[in-house]
């Protein structure tokens, strides 16, 4: 069974500028690899920033290049952290992150495999997200996380509220392993 939520485009239009990085998740190496995920996010930021104009003469404001670099780095890092934290390592399936550049937007696509129970809780939150006032939900979840309750989805909420990213999700049950669900997260960032 396949479920789709939000702004998910099944077949993205072709573009000449795109990049994909793949990881093979392993619980043993998680601590060692954690910093590599950050490095990969920074690399994506640096790489895609080169397609935008460099620093202007205005020294008191952030230039376009710096905004793209930092936004891509933050969003890619959060998407990777989420994918790694929620991946089912026993499924032994890789995590992929792709970034596509279009005239007016960047599209991030991240895929991983997760257990049915994790996906169920995630979908419940997505449904809440899609029907809530984002500003109110942000404050509510920030308060929740501050009081020590986990699962506050602050990563997702900061990307939407602070960076104006728009999201789409696809959940696809695996035919060979029914308890494993392939999760594809799509984030759109206007540039």
């Amino acid at each position, binding site marked *: 069974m396949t479920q789709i939520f939000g702004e998910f485009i099944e077949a993205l239009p072709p573009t000449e500028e795109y990049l994909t990085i793949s990881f093979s998740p392993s619980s043993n190496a998680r*601590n060692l690899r954690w910093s590599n995920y950050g490095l990969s996010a920074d690399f994506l930021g640096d790489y895609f920033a080169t397609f935008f104009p460099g620093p202007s003469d205005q020294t008191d404001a952030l230039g376009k290049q710096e905004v793209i670099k930092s936004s891509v780095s933050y969003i890619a890092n959060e998407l990777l952290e989420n994918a790694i934290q929620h991946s089912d390592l026993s499924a032994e399936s890789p995590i992929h992150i792709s970034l596509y550049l279009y005239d007016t937007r960047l599209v991030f696509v991240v895929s991983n495999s997760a257990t049915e129970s994790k996906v169920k809780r995630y979908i419940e939150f997505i449904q809440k997200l899609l029907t809530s006032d984002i500003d109110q939900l942000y*404050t509510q979840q920030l308060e929740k996380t501050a009081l020590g309750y986990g699962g506050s989805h*602050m990563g997702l909420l*900061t990307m939407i509220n602070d960076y104006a990213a728009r999201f789409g999700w696809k959940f696809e049950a695996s035919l060979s392993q029914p308890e494993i669900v392939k999760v594809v997260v799509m984030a759109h960032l206007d540039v």
Partner: protein
Amino acid sequence: MEITTKDYSVWYDPEKATVFFKGFLRLDGMEAYQPIINVLNIAAENGSVITLDMKNLEFLNSSGISMLSMFVVSLRNKGNVGLVLKGSNKVLWQTKSLRNLQRLMPSISLELG
């Protein structure tokens, strides 16, 4: 009191009643931030107004933002400690996310320079 790794430094200067942050903070979940929360709590015990100087903190992941929100709420609950957040308008995440902490404690003084 100081925590220094190859990616970041966090240190408390009691004379300035300030906790300084520098580098890239993207630790693996809230639990990994506990040593930094400990530094913040020590600072909160020792001053009536404390400053978090994040001008040189180039990156903070959402778990780090959650850590800050947890600290802000602990100060709010104490009721007698003021908080100043110093940031840079040259660091994007600070321009995007720092002001949201005022939702938890409107009396926070935010200085983006």
